[in-house]
């Protein structure tokens, strides 16, 4: 009686099974000369001067080169588009000799005029192409006053005052803005951000919103040519989806594997290769040194002794981080003090220090925790673990959780009257950068209101001393003082990680948080 209905249901069931059967026939395969990368976010811009996220810089570092660059596996500087350079004794004039015969991907020549155009574009409000901005992070390149181009292969950068991080910042991803094609900027104007144009080993070709972003090999590259013909970046924001795509062969390489999935990939070395690389990152607790109880150094040290950093790194972060020893991440091999060891996990010592400071019965504090955030790892889990460790010694922390933007909005203007401690982290390319912003008495965002004349003096010396050996000595002194004075609780240094198919060769993560894919090939 109801046959049409049943027939319809049967037909639908058959149709579904046909689709399913068809599915088996067309399993994902990636071509051998193309690397498909599972990327954590959408690309935002092709202009290195406008870029603000690590995920953008991971792509852009394959398209653009700076005057100098980082050596393999280190944050030391080596020649890039400049073959040599000198710094004047007063540290205010940098003279670069440029590599000759280099051409941009559009065929126009790279020379001192192009470098001058590129820097003027971002620092000179009256430059005809300044409107292609804004350039939010250009301040990282320091106080550049002007640029001279006396001959085609010489560039002189004049600074307003000595700024020692200049070279490391020029080598970092944002330094790629010195290798932008002026012809491309003039041609595309405000749309340059969607087209780009540099000197690097790969050239941008296709950008499909939400689907893929394609780079092809630059056949006229001045250096050794990439082995791969093309790179395809797929924006896969959801971390479970990123893992699933890797497991099914939909991607060849995935950067930032969630800690919970690391074991899965490590367990199958026949199919996957797992990579990790410490970077210049520190996850710490910012303490409000202006108000009780953390105005007392002994309480600050107590907090450092109370927290089990080993357990945090191994159990919560599944080995994707290592316990931190001080304000300068070990990835800065030249500036880090290797004699500094993390505060040991010592609850008894913490209790004793608390009692000495006048809190034998413990103390109540307010603790700001964020839901997520760039470089913040697993902030809520970590916050709860910290709360438990602190409670064990008598520091009773009341957690208040905020969304990342709200969280920053509450902390950055200062914590007085709001909170005693807060989670925070930084990633930087120079040991000067974050401490100068946060630990100097007159810093713009010294949220914990830390005051130490000796630290102020050392930070000033560190950013003006252009001799690297002397600079390193200054930062080692700085670390020792900050370690002991403990304006922060040093928790962990994150190791960036990645996983690739076992057929992917030649890939290495770089401490600068960029990905250099020109040496990669597939078997």
């Amino acid at each position, binding site marked *: *009686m*109801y046959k*049409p*209905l049943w027939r319809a*249901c049967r037909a*639908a069931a058959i149709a579904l099974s046909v*689709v*399913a059967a*068809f*599915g*088996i026939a*067309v399993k*994902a*395969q*990636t071509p051998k000369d*193309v690397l*498909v990368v599972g990327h954590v*976010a*959408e690309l*935002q*811009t092709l*202009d290195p001067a*406008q870029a*603000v996220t690590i995920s953008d810089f991971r792509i852009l570092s394959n398209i653009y080169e700076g005057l100098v660059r980082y050596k393999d596996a280190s944050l030391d500087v080596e020649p890039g588009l400049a073959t040599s350079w000198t710094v004047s004794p007063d540290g205010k004039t940098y003279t670069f000799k440029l590599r000759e015969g280099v051409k941009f991907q559009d065929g126009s020549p790279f020379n001192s005029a192009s470098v001058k155009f590129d820097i003027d574009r971002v620092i000179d409000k009256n430059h005809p192409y300044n409107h292609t901005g*804004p350039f*939010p*992070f250009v*301040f990282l390149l320091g106080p550049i006053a002007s640029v001279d181009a006396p001959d085609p292969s010489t560039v002189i950068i004049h600074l307003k005052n000595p700024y020692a991080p200049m070279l490391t910042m020029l080598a970092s991803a944002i330094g790629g803005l010195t290798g932008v094609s002026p012809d491309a900027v003039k041609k595309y104007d*405000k749309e340059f*951000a*969607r087209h780009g144009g540099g000197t690097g080993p790969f050239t941008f070709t296709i950008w*499909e*919103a*939400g*689907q893929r972003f394609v780079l092809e090999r630059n056949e006229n590259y001045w250096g050794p040519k990439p082995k791969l013909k093309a790179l395809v970046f*797929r*924006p*896969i*924001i*959801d971390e*479970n*989806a990123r893992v*699933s*795509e890797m*497991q*099914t062969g*939909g991607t060849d390489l995935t950067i930032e594997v969630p800690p919970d999935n690391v074991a899965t990939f490590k367990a199958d070395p026949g199919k996957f290769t797992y990579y990790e690389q410490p970077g210049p990152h520190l996850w710490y607790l910012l303490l409000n040194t202006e108000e009780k109880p953390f105005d007392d150094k002994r309480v600050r040290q107590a907090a450092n002794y109370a927290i089990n950093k080993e357990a945090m790194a191994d159990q919560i972060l599944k080995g994707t981080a290592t316990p931190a020893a001080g304000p300068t991440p070990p990835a800065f091999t030249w500036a880090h003090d290797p004699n500094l060891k993390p505060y040991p996990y010592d609850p008894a010592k913490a209790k004793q220090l608390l009692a000495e400071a006048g809190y034998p019965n413990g103390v109540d504090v307010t603790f700001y925790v964020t839901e997520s*955030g760039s470089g913040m790892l697993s902030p809520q889990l970590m916050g709860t673990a910290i709360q438990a460790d602190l409670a064990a010694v008598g520091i009773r922390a009341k957690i208040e959780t905020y969304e*990342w*933007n*709200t969280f*920053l*909005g509450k902390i*950055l203007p200062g914590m007085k009257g709001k909170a005693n401690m807060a989670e925070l*982290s*930084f990633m930087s390319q120079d040991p000067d950068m*974050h401490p100068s*912003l946060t630990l100097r008495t007159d810093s*713009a*965002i010294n949220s914990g209101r830390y005051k130490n004349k000796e630290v102020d003096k050392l930070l000033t010396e560190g950013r003006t001393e252009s001799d690297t050996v002397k600079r390193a000595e200054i930062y080692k002194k700085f670390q020792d003082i900050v370690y002991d004075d403990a304006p922060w609780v040093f928790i962990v240094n994150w190791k960036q990680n990645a996983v690739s198919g076992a057929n992917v060769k030649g890939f290495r993560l770089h401490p600068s948080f960029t990905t250099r894919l020109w040496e990669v090939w597939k078997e």
Partner: protein
Amino acid sequence: MRNYILRRLLLMVPVLFGITVIVFLVIWLIPGDPAKAILGTFATPENVAKLNHDLGLDRPLPVQYLIWLGNVLRGDFGRSYILHRPVIDEVLDRLFPTLLLAGTALILSSAFGVLLGIIAAIRQNGWQDKLITIAVLIGISTPSFWLGILLIFWFAVRLAWFPVGGMQALFGGGDLVDVIHHLALPAITLAAVAGAVLVRLTRGNMLEALRQDYVRTARAKGLSEGRVIYVHAFRNALVNIVPIIGLEAGFVLGGAVYIETVFQWPGIGRMLVSAISTRDILLVQGGVLIVATCYVFINLLTDIVQCILDPRIGQA
């Protein structure tokens, strides 16, 4: 009828205007402006002030809104601060995938929802009814993002019948079969909950219709049971089902936001999620306005269909 449609079209204008005001206000009520979102831990007062000035965000709120509204009326939705391209380009790139996903889910959920609802009603208390009721209960109580992850795990990772995500194969994809292949899992996920609600509703309405006097009359006239069910009972039940399908359209458009994230669908929902987290105000405004317009149009369409099914509505 024509007057009714015209009146409804005119009513859309204040609705859409209201939506723009609300969206603009809400995004400014969320703490953290675009400059702070961009600068993160580098958000010194000096840097924030400079960037806000460069982005044109240092003007008073009503002024910003009026400038935006004036531009929109001229067809200019502004430029995204984050994606550095005209908002309208990005939104149009993203609109088709969302309409494809939401449209397919709506068709699937309506077809299966109504079909199963009818079966459950005419087999009331039979085993088919019980089976469908249990399935519906599971469907309604399952969060769709979880169902999505589950389907990916089984059908994409374990069995490898379907791709994990995306709208087309990266290499040699893009034809109809390829897109359907990619569409299957997200569309089924999105349709499951919406369909379950419709089954319940159809079953209830059909049961009520089948108890009416005109059904008894129809049977007494000696009409075939099929005709009684589809022409007499169903047609009348449909008057109550159609507006729910209209509401479901809103539900699938909204549900697309997280389904698109789970399945990497390049649609407007996923775009909005990242635009909100980066405080990309103009992109959020443009995206929401377009989605809202679609929803308002679908509502209009269901009202018209309802009006055709039950002409009394248009005369009220």
